[in-house]
């Protein structure tokens, strides 16, 4: 039995806080802002929702670990709440689980809420939890992705200039996005001359640590039609997990991220997509580092292995290109509050499909792809959303 999820579940409301250094707000404040915005967008009350999925990665000083964080912030009591944590794929996976519950008929209308407060933490970057005290001592996100990037750059003869072009593109898009963490353009020279974080990544090759929350209200396509909503449905979904310790795994060759290849294959199959680069209108992909976007475009089948640099250099992934990638500014500019990021991608896709994206609007947006990549390339979740034509 391999029943397709295609067109069974609709997104009827989305909301998103401003992303950034939200020093004056706590996690609950962000949850209330995103959830009430999504409810207002959908035209439903919080009390009308039957269940909620909370996506948070890292429990902080003020909650985030358990479902009670959402229950208390929204007084969402007496109903099922599930917390999802799946590395940086937390947001998309929370959405995916909610979609399956709605598709099953068990839940009529669900809230998906991704929220993360990273800036209150005493550590720089992401808190490391549950890692081996010796074998993985001191690992950092830039360090992990730099291992993969250096191998890739050595294999394909790629220079830092190719990585910098992703930063230039995604900063240009972020400059058009009033909710983005960074809203300024950068030049290739600025990117290349920035202080190094983990070679080959300089400061502008890295996404920031960000506070933010995003929410989506989902229900069955029939319910959405009955409510008279413009129909934006889930076309396909996929999730795949690979080793979380490629640096200890002798079978890992560091050629692309198989998790992305497998998750996208699942989603394409469900959506009936044969030729992604022709059939997908735009994509929000996981550019945690500039190089990651290059390899993502290959793993998602937008171009062949090793052609990611040319794909960006030839302008195919700009807002006016043949397959705009990260028209929102991506993690690079929009920011990366881990658990919120995947839900923020759903917010962006719905906004684009409704043609409400203003100066960053993609032309003829019919199918949008959201992609998260978690851990050291270990977990990938891919979502495809489309509008009724």
């Amino acid at each position, binding site marked *: 039995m391999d029943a397709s999820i295609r067109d069974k579940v609709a997104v009827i409301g989305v909301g998103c806080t401003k992303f950034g250094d939200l020093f004056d707000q706590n996690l609950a404040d962000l949850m209330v802002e995103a959830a009430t915005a999504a409810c207002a967008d959908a035209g439903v009350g919080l009390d009308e929702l039957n269940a909620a999925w909370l996506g948070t990665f890292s429990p902080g000083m003020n909650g985030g670990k358990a479902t009670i964080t959402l229950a208390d912030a929204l007084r969402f009591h007496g109903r099922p709440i599930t917390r999802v944590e799946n590395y940086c794929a937390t947001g998309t996976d929370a959405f995916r689980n909610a979609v399956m519950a709605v598709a099953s008929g068990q839940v009529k209308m669900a809230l998906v809420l991704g929220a993360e407060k990273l800036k209150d933490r005493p550590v*720089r*970057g992401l808190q490391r939890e549950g890692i081996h*005290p*010796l*074998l*993985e*001592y*001191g*690992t*950092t996100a*830039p*360090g*992990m992705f*730099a*291992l*993969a990037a*250096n*191998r890739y750059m*050595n294999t394909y003869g790629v220079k830092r200039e190719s990585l910098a072009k992703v930063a230039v593109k995604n900063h240009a898009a972020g400059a058009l996005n009033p909710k983005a963490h960074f809203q300024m353009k950068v030049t290739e020279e600025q990117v290349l001359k920035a*202080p*190094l*974080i*983990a*070679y080959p990544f300089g400061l502008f090759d890295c996404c920031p640590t960000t506070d933010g929350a995003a929410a989506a209200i989902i229900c069955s396509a029939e319910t959405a039609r009955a409510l008279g909503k413009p129909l934006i449905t889930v076309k396909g979904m996929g999730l795949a997990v690979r*080793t979380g*310790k*490629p*640096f*200890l*795994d*002798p*079978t890992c060759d*560091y050629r692309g991220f198989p998790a992305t290849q497998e998750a996208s294959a699942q989603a394409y199959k469900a959506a009936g997509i044969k030729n992604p680069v022709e059939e997908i209108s735009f994509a929000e992909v996981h550019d945690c580092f500039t190089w990651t976007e290059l390899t993502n475009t290959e793993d998602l089948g937008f171009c062949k292995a090793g052609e990611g640099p040319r794909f960006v250099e030839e302008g195919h992934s700009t807002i006016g290109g043949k397959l705009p990638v990260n028209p929102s500014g991506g993690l690079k500019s929009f920011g990366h509050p881990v658990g919120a990021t995947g839900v923020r991608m759903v917010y962006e896709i719905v906004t684009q499909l409704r043609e409400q994206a203003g100066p960053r609007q993609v032309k003829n947006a019919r199918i949008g792809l959201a992609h998260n990549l978690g851990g050291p390339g270990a977990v990938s979740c891919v979502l495809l959303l489309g509008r009724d034509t």
Partner: protein
Amino acid sequence: MIGITAFAAAIPAYRVARDTIAAAWETRSLGGRLAAHRFDEDSLTLAASAAADCLCTLPGKTAGGLYFASTTAPFLERLNAGLVAAFLDLPAETRTADFANSLRAGLFALGAATDAVAAGRSENVIAAAADTRNAPAGGDEEQFYGDAAAAIAIGSTNVLAEIISRGGISDDFLETVRRDRDDYVTSFASKFTAERGYAHSMAAAIRRNMQQAKLEPAQISRLVLSSPDKGAHLALAKKLGFQPAQVQDTAWDQLGVTGTAMPLLLLASALEQAKPGEYILVAAHGDGAGAMILRTTEELAGYRPRASFAQQLASAIEFRSYTKWRKSRDYLREQDDTLEVSNIWYAKEETQNVRLRGMECGHCGTRQLQHQLLCPKCHKTDAIQEVPLARTGSVFTFAVDQLFPSPFPPTAMAVVDLDGGGRIYCEVVDCDPDKVQIGLPVELTIRRLKEGGGLHHYYWKCRPKRF
């Protein structure tokens, strides 16, 4: 015949110029350089490095015993030799003991190893001596102490140098002292110390051995003497009727005074230069003095130490500032005591983390470091076996990370594919991080990683393959 069957020196890759120290205090420089440990090295890691190099030139690459000697042992309660033996993956039957508290501790370990072999209790007992002594900041001794280790194996077959005589005198004399509450050595340096603490005791020990072996000074090819400073040993040799050419260089100019490692280290350097049929006299001071006379055999001509004194003396990276040199000595002491582990976890993972044994699949031959009951390649579970992993390999990929916890960022981190299979993720040390590249051949080296839970935590790092 009982004598030396293997030897190795372990000199840290780093040096500090005495000019650098003198400039920091606006004082007089004694010239030359000191051997300086990196922030992640201590007497245990240096001894482990020397013992490992010594072990791999022994037949069967195994030893019957491992003795550790130091005045700067990282553990005051917990057998340091036991931990070194585990890093060397030696079996539980290995004789282990710590020798401590005296500059002669290295010589004591060598003597105990000789006794064990002579008594027929053991074969090829390694005595590993190391010191990383700390002088008070700004004190004269700051320009004296260098860090180093040496390991010497004693056995009864394939002997490179036979032990002809040994013996010494004990003297509870105040020369250098460090109480249980002190971080730094208190030195009673004076003319009296030079006479009674050094010359008198050394002369007594040397004469006793010469008489025992019935040898005259002219018959000694190499006179290997510890020395508290630049020239005390030369004056002593002259007084005892030796010519300057007979006296082994103490490496004062390149390494400094290397504590309890000094006699073993200089003996290793003498053996590297010696030819078969030579008499070597080694003597060391500290709470009295001890000595030993050896005669090199034909076996010596065919012996190559894995890590020679001469090569390590030449290869050196320099701390260019006093602050960095000092920081490297204090860094781990100042570290957060945060990594708490249970002894259950430690014991369960000892073969993996300490002995560096991995798992091999009998079906497809895939090896991995992590102890997992399922093959990562063919997913079978019925033929997984524990195997020792090679301690050499090459860099598969790397990152030069500014955020990795270190006193001197950036840190070069590498994914290393070990020769024969297995993969490890570790820091690349003793080289410029910017010089690390894919394919670089490396060897594993045990280092201090972190502090916590009342323990020093050690783990593997790698360095460019040296020789």
